[in-house]
């Protein structure tokens, strides 16, 4: 696999207010990063920009290898961003997990098997045919993770993925991230909490005053309950 993302001179403004201005940010294959920072510093905005869902006011983001298909989809097919509060499509839990797979033109049998194992991982088997809208907050979060996981992303942005998860779920997400990173994928996680997941992260980025700084965990910024 092996994706490499380079962002240079990224600036984001909302009206007058400059949210951040980042000179250089690199994410390499097999890396896991923890992005921290106070509410409203722009973690979500930054991750969306890196994932190609939002446009910076200035600067360039480069993902190599560039895997643009014949249909210029403009988004990199191996880069996935997960919302802070995930959006679930109408339809069943199963449909949601199969969404990305169906777009890839994978065989029905293969999709079925993949969806089944994703349901198991997310412990949502019993809800497989329920309307995804009726899931609880944490269940939706797990669904969104499973929905991204089945697509074997090379670069995964997780926006506060564990905020609403119970202990067991956090552990399985941690396990998942560890495996993905071992497999050569890169994962960036934003979180206000320190927990098993953030602890597996190799690099720790702090977004503050519009700048990103690489740092040891500034523990005092986080809970150490």
């Amino acid at each position, binding site marked *: 696999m092996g994706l490499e993302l380079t962002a240079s001179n990224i600036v984001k403004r909302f009206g007058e207010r400059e949210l951040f201005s980042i000179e250089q940010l690199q994410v390499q294959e097999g890396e896991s990063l923890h992005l921290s920072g106070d509410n409203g510093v722009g973690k979500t905005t930054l991750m969306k920009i890196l994932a190609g*869902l939002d446009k910076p006011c200035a600067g360039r983001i480069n993902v190599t290898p560039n895997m643009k298909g014949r249909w210029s*989809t403009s988004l990199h097919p191996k880069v*996935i*961003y997960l*919302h802070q509060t*995930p*959006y679930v*499509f109408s339809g069943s839990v199963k449909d949601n997990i199969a969404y*990305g797979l169906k*777009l890839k033109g994978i065989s029905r049998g293969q999709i079925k098997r993949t969806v089944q194992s994703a349901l198991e991982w997310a412990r949502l088997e019993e809800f497989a045919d329920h309307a995804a809208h009726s899931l609880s907050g944490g269940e939706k979060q797990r669904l969104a993770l499973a929905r991204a996981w089945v697509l074997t992303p090379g670069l995964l942005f997780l926006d506060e993925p564990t905020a609403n998860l119970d202990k067991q779920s956090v552990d399985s997400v941690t396990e998942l991230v560890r495996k993905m990173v071992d497999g050569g994928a890169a994962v960036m996680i934003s979180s206000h909490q320190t927990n098993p997941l953030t602890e597996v992260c190799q690099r720790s980025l702090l977004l503050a005053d519009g700048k990103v700084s690489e740092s040891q965990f500034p523990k005092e910024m986080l809970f150490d309950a």
Partner: protein
Amino acid sequence: MQDNLLETSMLSLQLLFSLDAELWDIIGVSFRVSITAILIATLPAILVGFFLAMVDFKGRWMVIALFNALMAVPTVVVGLTLYLLLSRSGPLGDLHLLFTQPAMIIGQVALAFPLLVCMSHSAFQSIDKRAWETARTLGANCFFAVTTIMKEARFALLAAVLAGFGRIISEVGCSMMIGGNIMSYTRNIPTAIALETSKGMFAQGIALGLVLLILALLLNFTLASIRGKGRLV
């Protein structure tokens, strides 16, 4: 002749249950033309609505206002304009389309279009931005993402299509003008009603209206049972 409302209603019902061949002819023209027209108009109009909801370009609000204003153009004016285009002495006269069903279809497409655009624009506006982002990040190209959003907005879109269908199946001005109300060919329910009314045969007019209402009810009941008895989600 009948004078009062009760007698008229009775007569309407009588007429209704003695459906004769001529009536079926008229019903056939009505639904064939309007269903074809709505099928042709829906997809392009929805795409325009989507474009107007999602893409922020200069002058967007003017385009939206224009489509809103076009809803206020009387059907007969649309009919007149098409008439002048399709008339023998008009620029498209050589197509010999005037007073044919294809001409009626063209007219009804033109009538349904602005309403469909406005209503689907408003349907897409109320869809969460994250739906689009989620579809895109999960690998949908723009085309597939649009179909996903259409699925998310399907109830509002269905309501839009039903409103559009209601507009064209019931309109008389344009069909009369470019269809010509020719018996067994371009006479549909609304033009037949107009004819009966002009004759002073009010009961027959109302009866035809009831026929249309009943058929529309059947259509809607079918759709409602497909979409899950009106429930959201």
